[in-house]
């Protein structure tokens, strides 16, 4: 598929924004300024950016504990996310949710939650709502390989298929469920196959290739909009950082058990570098264009961090403010 220059540059810019957001957090996490558990998205940017390029503000998305990328790619603002990660009143969830509960209903980011597999059925419900209303919206659930151990995903696949719901299941297979390598969790590394018994069309793509993700998602979303959903996309990817925090140094103990050679091999498949090379090679973007995108992202992140730092924390008197509506 031939993408326009504009589409490709938007895709690239989104990935860069996500990367800069994530990497800017390494310092504040290490100094203890940011305490909320941050599951950084570095390395997986092509998935959020590639899939959500096909979603409008009216479409619905649910994420996970690792959803900084989903939030930004769905249209949430850098200031909102940064202020939430700094747990400020100006954050997207007013400092009540932190890194794992990013929400921007105004652009269809309906929420994220760290109960593994827990939001898959919520996205199922958003698709059911679209089906009942007949409003052509599509919903997506993002989840990791670890979520395939949960029963709710199979229940959701079955029901989505039974009612032909407009839902895209997006599995970000990064080969590790926290500390557990995939082969210690399941006999087959081929996750897309789990959707096949439910008669669901599947894609299995290189999740570090933004163009491949973009192409698969284009077909999957079109299928859903045509009333022929659901769809299942498995993106093979890898997190460059720890499960939580920059390097899984939890209470002083380095817990990342991934082989160094494995990490090094994946670093060579950096999705941002790959798209950059592709665009430069085809003269779809100049080095100056790329530098400008990076500068803009850097400035946006710096502004957001400064905004977060000068924003107030929630007032103690407001502790019980949002228990009930």
């Amino acid at each position, binding site marked *: 598929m031939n993408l326009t220059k504009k589409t490709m540059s938007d895709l690239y810019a989104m990935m860069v924004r996500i990367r800069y957001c994530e990497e800017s957090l390494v310092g504040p996490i290490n100094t203890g300024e940011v305490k909320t558990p941050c599951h950084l998205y570095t390395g997986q940017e092509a998935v959020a950016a590639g899939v959500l390029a096909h979603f409008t503000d009216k479409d619905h998305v649910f994420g996970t504990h690792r959803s900084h990328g989903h939030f930004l790619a769905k249209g949430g603002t850098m200031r909102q996310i940064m202020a939430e990660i700094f747990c400020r009143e100006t954050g997207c969830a007013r400092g009540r949710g932190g890194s794992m509960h990013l*929400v921007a209903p105004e652009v269809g980011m309906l929420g994220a939650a760290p109960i593994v597999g827990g939001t898959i059925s919520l996205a199922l419900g958003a698709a059911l709502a679209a089906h009942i209303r007949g409003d052509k919206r599509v919903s997506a659930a993002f989840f990791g390989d670890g979520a395939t151990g949960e029963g709710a995903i199979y229940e959701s696949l079955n029901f989505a298929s039974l009612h032909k719901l407009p839902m895209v299941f997006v599995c970000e297979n990064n080969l590790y469920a926290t500390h557990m390598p995939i082969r210690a969790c399941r006999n087959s590394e081929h996750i897309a196959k789990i959707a096949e018994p439910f008669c669901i069309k599947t894609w299995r793509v290189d999740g570090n290739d933004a163009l491949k993700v973009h192409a698969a998602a284009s077909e999957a979303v079109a299928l859903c909009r045509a009333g022929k959903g659901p769809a299942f996309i498995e993106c093979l990817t890898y997190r460059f950082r720890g499960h939580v925090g920059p390097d899984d140094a939890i209470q002083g103990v380095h817990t990342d058990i991934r082989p160094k050679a494995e990490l090094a091999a994946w670093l060579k498949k950096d999705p941002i570098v790959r798209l950059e090379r592709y665009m430069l090679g085809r003269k779809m973007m100049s080095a100056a264009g790329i530098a400008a995108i990076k500068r803009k992202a850097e400035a946006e992140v710096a502004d957001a961090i400064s905004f977060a730092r000068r924003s107030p924390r929630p007032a103690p008197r407001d502790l019980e403010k949002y228990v009930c509506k």
Partner: protein
Amino acid sequence: MSANRRLSYSLAINEALHQCMAADRGVFLIGQGVNSPWYVGNTAQGLLERFGGKRVIDTPVSENAMTGAAVGAAIAGMRPVVEHPRVDFMLYAIDPIINEAANWHYMSGGRSACPVVIWGIINRGGEQAAQHSQALQAMFAHIPGLKVVMPATPYDAKGLMVAAIRDDNPVVFMDDRWLYRDEDIVPEKIYSVPIGKAAVRRKGDDITIVASSYLAREAVKAADILHHEGVSAEVIDLRTIKPLDTAAILRSIKKTGRLLVADGGWRSFGVASEICALAAESGIGLDRPPVRLTLPDCPAPASVSLEKVYYKHCEDIVLTAKKLCAR
């Protein structure tokens, strides 16, 4: 339109669903057996024919994802009612109910809401044993962000279902099959019973009996018997377990000085315990220590010989109240 139209408890729920679905296109019913009287009695009759299969969805046996789907649809702007033919089966859905629905408004800083009704039917007796009998209102009432209602009368069954559907928060609606055939006057128009307001069913001076659902009905019968035996009992039907109408309870015990709480759940850490704690913390000097009339801390048995001593009814309330009032 008759002002004195009588309707059964179960058909009052049915009417609430009909009227809410007609009034708001965002309301839909989803759950196991919604098209089967085997599961839901006549509470869902006529809905499928009137509103179609897109809004009346009988589901595979899939409590977790079906409840999650209702929660997700609510977050996406609908007003779903997700039905569980037994409270026991709802336990598969604890994650979407507690982790997601109950916390949703709070953890989004008020940016998002989850107006879902989680309808759990208490269905016990008949030698059904421990997994077809549980009444878990205390467990749900423990959770911040959840409201819990338990209607005792046909009027409240309709009005509380309407209120639950209209509420912007997740509401656990628990009804009781033992009440399904009770008949009373139920207005034909749509109306709601306010969530969080108890009702004084009998006025009295000697003892306050706090109860809900089936035991509220039994408490009213008990009060009438006690009246003939010279004991003036005030009956407070909670109607809503959470938020609890603390003012109604405290007002009454201040007057009577005696408190009997009857609850269809277990004794320890239950609704009755909460109300006794409320009384103790209020500093209102009771004439006698309060008494809890509940299930023993024991799973539901099968054999009818055991069921007879397990479940509490009118006569248990009468006996306990008389003991409490004896001088």
